């Protein structure tokens, strides 16, 4: 029984945690937002330098090949500081799509650039309202070109290449590479719930796109989302844990009626409930990490479970962190809101809790039917 991260992964985590806490201290994200920049370019270079962006990428393609366990702990630490970089879109989605479905040429073209941070990826699936589902995809590739408006696309601002989900000429839905420095690309920034996480309407007019060789059906999209879901779960747990830490620290130092508010059961039990929700999510995420590392058959179910638990735990922790902070909690000057809005944005990013809960049940049905010998 070894249901814990490897010593390597733990060492990376410790280093990452120390680095990020120093590099992105309280207030840094708010300052970044006020700067108006799409992402923190210096920070991006630094984490590229440390090999984080190539964590899942083999050395043959310029990656650091740290492995998925390590990618999971990095995601958690990135989440804990709400780091203002497009880590998820580029690593969990764009790189992952190329790794899973790219031709050798596509991998050789893009992965080294993504691993080095020279190019940044994003992922365009939504065509307006709706959760991931083939019938919700409206963008349609015609003659190798796309004319569409994909929105919202998280973090598309300042990124160089999009993996786009679109209808194929041959029918069905597939994954396509759309370089964003190409023809007919326009980005309209949309006001986002989470102002540190810019949303974009990506308008393409006759933009040439390239199909991801192995990713030309909905099953590929599902597989990609499942793998990303596990990494997102860790990012969410990182945020949830940080929100809980904030709340605990505040509850110990803030006094009312002559005593720390953390000595009142209403506060104390709320914090205990946050802790419990996070631990349940964390254990489920660990199982996801295990499945991801070995591409196990359990991955789809593990992903849906980890994703749902993490989305709910983060939203709960972020919301109640504000409540523990009282009046200060809903001011801009506190970090509370970063977690609150990020929790919601991440819970929607690759499909809502409803979507994943239902996926979870479908996968359980399948597992049970298989076990029953159907």
């Amino acid at each position, binding site marked *: 029984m070894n249901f814990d991260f490897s010593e390597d992964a733990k060492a990376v985590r410790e280093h990452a945690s120390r680095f990020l806490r120093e590099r992105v201290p309280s207030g840094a994200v708010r300052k970044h937002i006020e700067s108006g920049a799409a992402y923190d370019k210096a920070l991006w270079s630094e984490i590229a330098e440390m090999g984080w962006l190539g964590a899942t990428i083999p050395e043959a393609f310029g990656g650091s090949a740290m492995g998925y366990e390590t990618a999971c702990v990095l995601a958690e630490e990135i989440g804990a500081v709400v780091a203002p970089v497009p880590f998820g879109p580029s690593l969990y989605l764009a790189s992952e799509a190329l790794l899973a479905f790219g031709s050798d040429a596509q991998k050789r073209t893009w992965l080294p650039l993504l691993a080095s941070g020279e190019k940044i990826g994003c992922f365009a699936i939504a065509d307006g309202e709706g959760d991931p589902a083939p019938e919700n995809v409206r963008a349609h590739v015609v003659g190798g070109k796309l004319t569409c408006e994909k*929105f919202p696309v998280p973090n598309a601002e300042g990124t160089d290449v999009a993996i786009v989900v679109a209808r194929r000429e041959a029918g069905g839905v597939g994954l396509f590479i759309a370089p964003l420095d190409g023809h007919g690309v326009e980005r309209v920034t949309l006001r*986002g719930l989470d102002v540190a996480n810019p949303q974009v309407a990506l308008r393409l007019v006759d933009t040439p796109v390239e199909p991801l060789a192995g990713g030309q059906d909905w099953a590929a999209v599902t597989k990609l989302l499942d793998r990303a879901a596990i990494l997102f779960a860790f990012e969410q747990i990182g945020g949830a844990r940080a929100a809980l830490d904030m709340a605990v620290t505040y509850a110990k130092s803030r006094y009312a009626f*002559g*005593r*720390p508010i953390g000595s*009142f059961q209403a506060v104390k039990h709320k914090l205990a409930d946050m802790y419990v929700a996070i631990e349940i999510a964390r254990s489920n995420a660990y199982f996801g990490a295990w499945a991801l590392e070995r591409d196990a058959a359990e991955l789809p179910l593990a992903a849906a479970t980890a994703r749902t638990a993490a989305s709910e735990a983060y939203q709960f922790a972020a919301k109640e962190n504000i409540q523990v902070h009282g009046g200060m909690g*809903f001011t801009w000057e506190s970090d509370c809101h970063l977690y609150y809005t990020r929790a919601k944005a991440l819970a929607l990013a690759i499909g809502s809790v*409803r979507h994943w809960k239902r996926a979870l049940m479908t996968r359980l049905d399948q597992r049970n039917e298989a076990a029953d010998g159907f």
Partner: protein
Amino acid sequence: MDFEDTPEEATFRAEVRAFLDANTTRKSTERAYRKRALDEADVARAKQWQAQKADAGFAAITWPTEYGGRGGSMIQHLIYAQEEENYVVPQHIFNQSIGLALPTIMTHGRKDRVERFARPALRGEEIWCQLFSEPAAGSDLGGLRTRAVRDGDEWVINGQKIWTSNAYFADFGMLVARSDANVVKHAGLTFFYIDMKSPGIEIRRIRQISGASNFCEVFFTDVRIPDSQRLGAVGEGWKVAMTMLLNERLVVGQAEGPDFEDIYALAKLVLLEGAPAIEDVAVRERLADWYIQQQGLRLTKFRTMTALSRGKTPGPEASITKLVSATKLQDIASFGIDLLGMAGAAMDPRIAPMNAWFQEALLYAPGKRIAGGTDEVLRNIIAERVLKLPGDMRADKDLPFRDIPTGAKS
């Protein structure tokens, strides 16, 4: 049981409607997703409408006639509010003046003070704000630290207040400050009113999560107040403040924002798995919960009105209303956003349905669970005042204020 007015109430209601019909227009049936930040023009419009109401005798229904009120009842006040809700009127910014400040002056101030302030407040010519909460004194208001030091016929105020609505256009403020730190905390407070233009007052807006600034911080540096602006005896500020807060609890009501009708409308609009979301049984069960709560609160208000109509003092209903509606608001906002799936994170009004109302609500809902009494304070009130459960243990009991633990390293 009936929902009908008594003959007297019906007459009054007809009068109200006649006034409103003559002076403004009925709202359309569409819900307005109004933004809530006030600019100068809003304030001017609000003042003008207040003057019109004053002329017609609707500005301060429960005030005695000698000060320009109607000498009317609480039920008349509620009838007016009920009716006005159906009409297009400027946002009301006089609750603190009419409902809190002047009644306090009437109770604790000299008659000439009432005569000086009643009419301008009534007509909206002077606006009052409330200077109670402090950064270190929220739920524990009695722990406030702003100092009032006597200097001859004057008091010198130093400290900081926070969460003051409307401070930046208020003319006067109601202030509680600590005049004695050597006695137990509630015994060392004194109540004043203060000219908001006094030298030494600095006002800063507080930026909220949503980007809006509905509240201010107010800083006091050697601000001087004549002793004649004291209300109540020295050291009796807590008593004065409490009568005022009791009135406030009755005023604080429903957390405004998307409610059952709105989430129902959204669920009709949005598709879920190929059909309108409203047809999804999981969505339906969740919506039913909110209908029950919303309807329950609406009907509870009718029970309150019935009690008022019989001359009884209303109970803790306002606490229930705020407690339930604030969480309901936060849940509905979150649920509505989730209905949009991956598009929910964009609150651009070009994309987000209903002018991004659900997203806006998600951003301000946390404040609704805190301002005007946190969820926790409201549960304490219900438990202690309604169910008569014993109070919590007090770490600050019998201690002089200066010795109460604050967590500050000494």
